[in-house]
């Protein structure tokens, strides 16, 4: 199971859990682009790598040593072709 970690506007890190529902018609990259705040860097990591029982505030990624996998998109909505897949799946 993959999750997305992003560096928020306050420079703290947050974790995004994509739903299985969304992963049926969109890639985790497409979900990250939509749900990560615009322009903020994100990394896709395996959930098992997250340390157990520590608060999210303790998460830290060295951006210089680990270049981001992408950046949040301008829109908080999926593009029309992705939404169309969701509609067809929901019929």
């Amino acid at each position: 199971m993959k999750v997305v970690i992003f560096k928020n506007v306050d420079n703290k890190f947050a974790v995004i859990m994509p739903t299985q529902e969304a992963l049926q018609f969109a890639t985790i990259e497409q979900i990250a682009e939509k749900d990560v705040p615009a322009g903020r860097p994100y990394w896709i990591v395996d959930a098992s790598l997250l340390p157990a029982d520590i608060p999210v505030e303790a998460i830290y990624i060295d951006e210089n040593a680990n270049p981001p996998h992408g950046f949040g998109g301008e829109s908080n909505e999926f593009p029309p072709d992705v939404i169309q897949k969701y509609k067809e799946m929901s019929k």
Partner: protein
Amino acid sequence: MSLESQVAQLSQNVGNLVNRVATQADTWNNMVQNKINELEQWKQNANSQLNFVANDPKVKTALNASGDAPIYACRAWVNFTDMTSPPTIRASGNVSSVVMETTGIYIINFITAMPDTQYAVSLSFSSDSDVSSNALKVIEDSSNLYMYTTSVKVGVLQGHGGWKFLSAAIFR
């Protein structure tokens, strides 16, 4: 029989044959047109039966909603566990992801946007500890109410302690 007579007879036979074919073609054409008309009528009848207004008795009966009170739809919902170990979304509808922003603060992102930000948020959570020490809320601060058409930010006052899963449902 003279050659001229044979040609005249043959010509008459061909003429008769053409007339019979034309008549038969008209008959078939009429039959096809009748079937098309029947199908069109059937389509109109089907459409009239499928078109119904909101809160149509057929819909309410199907949903077991008795009485005169109208029904309104849940537009998105999610059920997720405390995200500290390990994070798990148990089930969802029209939710693309849940963000753990800080301890006890979550952003629920919708797959398809709400029509506006006037929706209602229903929150609940499980707890095996002192319920009075926990509280659920939609987050706001001095400048923002974090209810957008594409997401809503919610919080559990006591962070990740004492609860196993949180549910949210959006009505509009």
